[in-house]
């Protein structure tokens, strides 16, 4: 599903050159749940951003769902992200001025769907994460776990093949973290969604199919 070939990422300033990723080779199968672990600053999020086409590698090739993306223009990349990928972030990234239902509808706004269809899909996604009774709430009226569930609903509303989760339980206590992890596992199990998750939590990582460890931008496991 995702194939990374000799990925290198270098951040350059006028005086410093930082090697964030160095020769990453990775192949993630369809339906796989992969964890990425490593100390802070080792390049986990950079790797996830590259997989999510939010950042470009300095060197190397990426292939997602059978498509090489290095020649995509901005519009093609946006369309690809919208249709194939779902994102979950540690800090949820919900829009505070929009109700829960409107936050979940967001990815569908960039598709050719009717308002009625958007509302139906968003409601279904919220039902999946157990928040069908919070449609009209604003994010600030929700707990951290509920916010992350809204973020998951937003990630799955467009029925993507791949979900990229950047420390989805990082801001939550263990009970809520487990709840979120359970939802992700169910998505993977029931819907066959490929999930790549960056985490610091060894217990969470153990629940996934496979684990990649990074250190100083290199793959060590």
């Amino acid at each position: 599903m995702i194939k990374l070939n000799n990925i290198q990422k270098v951040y350059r300033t006028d005086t410093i050159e930082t090697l964030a990723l160095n020769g990453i080779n990775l192949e993630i199968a369809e339906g796989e749940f992969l964890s990425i672990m490593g100390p802070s600053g080792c390049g986990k999020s950079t790797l996830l951003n590259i997989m999510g086409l939010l950042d470009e590698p300095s060197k190397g090739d990426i292939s997602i769902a059978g498509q090489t993306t290095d020649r995509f223009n901005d519009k093609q990349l946006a369309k690809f992200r919208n249709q194939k990928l779902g994102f979950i972030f540690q800090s949820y990234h919900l829009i505070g001025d929009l109700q829960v239902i409107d936050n979940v509808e967001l990815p569908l706004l960039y598709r050719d769907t009717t308002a009625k269809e958007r509302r139906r899909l968003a409601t279904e996604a919220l039902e999946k994460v157990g928040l069908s009774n919070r449609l009209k709430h604003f994010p600030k009226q929700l707990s951290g776990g509920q916010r992350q569930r809204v973020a998951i609903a937003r990630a799955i509303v467009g029925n993507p093949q791949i979900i990229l989760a950047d420390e989805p339980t990082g801001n939550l206590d263990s009970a809520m973290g487990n709840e979120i992890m359970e939802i992700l596992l169910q998505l993977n199990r029931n819907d066959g969604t490929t999930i790549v998750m960056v985490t610091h939590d060894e217990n969470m990582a153990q629940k996934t199919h496979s684990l990649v460890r990074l250190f100083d931008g290199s793959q060590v496991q």
Partner: protein
Amino acid sequence: MIKHLFKLIWNKKKQNFLLITEILVSFMVIFAVFTLVVNYYQHYKQPMGFESDRVWVINYQSDVNIKDKDSLDVYYKTILGNIKAMPQVQEASFASSNVPFSANTHMNNVDYKKTHVNRVNYYTAGDTYDKVLGMKVTEGRWFGKQDDAATVRPMIINRTLRQQLFGSGKALGEKVGDDNSNKMVIIGVVEDVKAKGDYQEGGFAMYKRIDTSSNDGRGRILVKVNTNADAAFESRLYKLMASNANNSGIEIEHLTDKRKTINSTTLIPMIILLIVACFLIINVALGLFGVLWYNINKRKGEIGLRRAIGASGNSVSWQLVTESMILATLSLIIGAFFAVQFPLLNVFDLPASVYLVAILLSVIFIYLLVLVCSLYPGKQASAILPAVALHEE
């Protein structure tokens, strides 16, 4: 997407209140400026109704002490005859002090049956006044010898007053009254004359014939001169007047110079208002630009998120520009509501078309201003890298 943006703006109404107010105030100021400009332009487009080229105005003291009316008549006819006899003079006429482009205004009211018209400019004019100024008589005739024996004082009115008093009905021969209940009979209708300059309307006007045996209603002589009338001729004319009128209050002015002066007097307040408006617009533009720029920096996380879930750089840019335009629309709806009251309530007695054109121009201007101010921040927003924006948040 538009509905989504409306919702987003509505949910942020407190934050957007100041911006909406700022655009609203700008709209009202621009509306005032455009009202003035459109009003002036509409007047400017109207024909002058007379020719001011090579028309000179002789100011003199009309207080000659001749008691006998016939002698006074002869006295004035002699002065006019001497002026007309000069080879450079084409035509000359006595006039009251409110000659075209002067600061003097004589107002009266006119009644006809149940119609009462206020603020009618009245001019006292000689028999050749129309020829000196090249005025166009559209109905009837100008004053002449035949009016010497008139039992009812003759009067000439302009087209606008004719329309107001009689509509499409007959005007000639009709009797009208003034403030003093003097009855006058209409003998002619002339085209409107823009006597207060290119940018002022002609308004209502009526012309009364100068009483040749009285000092009243005099004070000016209008002289149409040939192309060869030069400074030397002006000097001779001055000497002639000084010797004939036997007083020292003589001054000769050119209508073309008076026209420039009165136009400047009209335009200067508008120019000052335009300068003030320009400063305000610059302030508003900078304010808008700053607020939008600030919003983009504040909303980097949201921009990053939108990019991640499927928005292209252009659609982010479009979204921000559209948001600004929606805010402008909300301001303009409120502004237009207030602006429309001006024609509805007939404020300042201007035609409704002036206000409507001014509203339209102001709306276009505000939209353009907001568009220009939001394009660059929108462009900057589209250049934000999603990974960086999400990381910063």
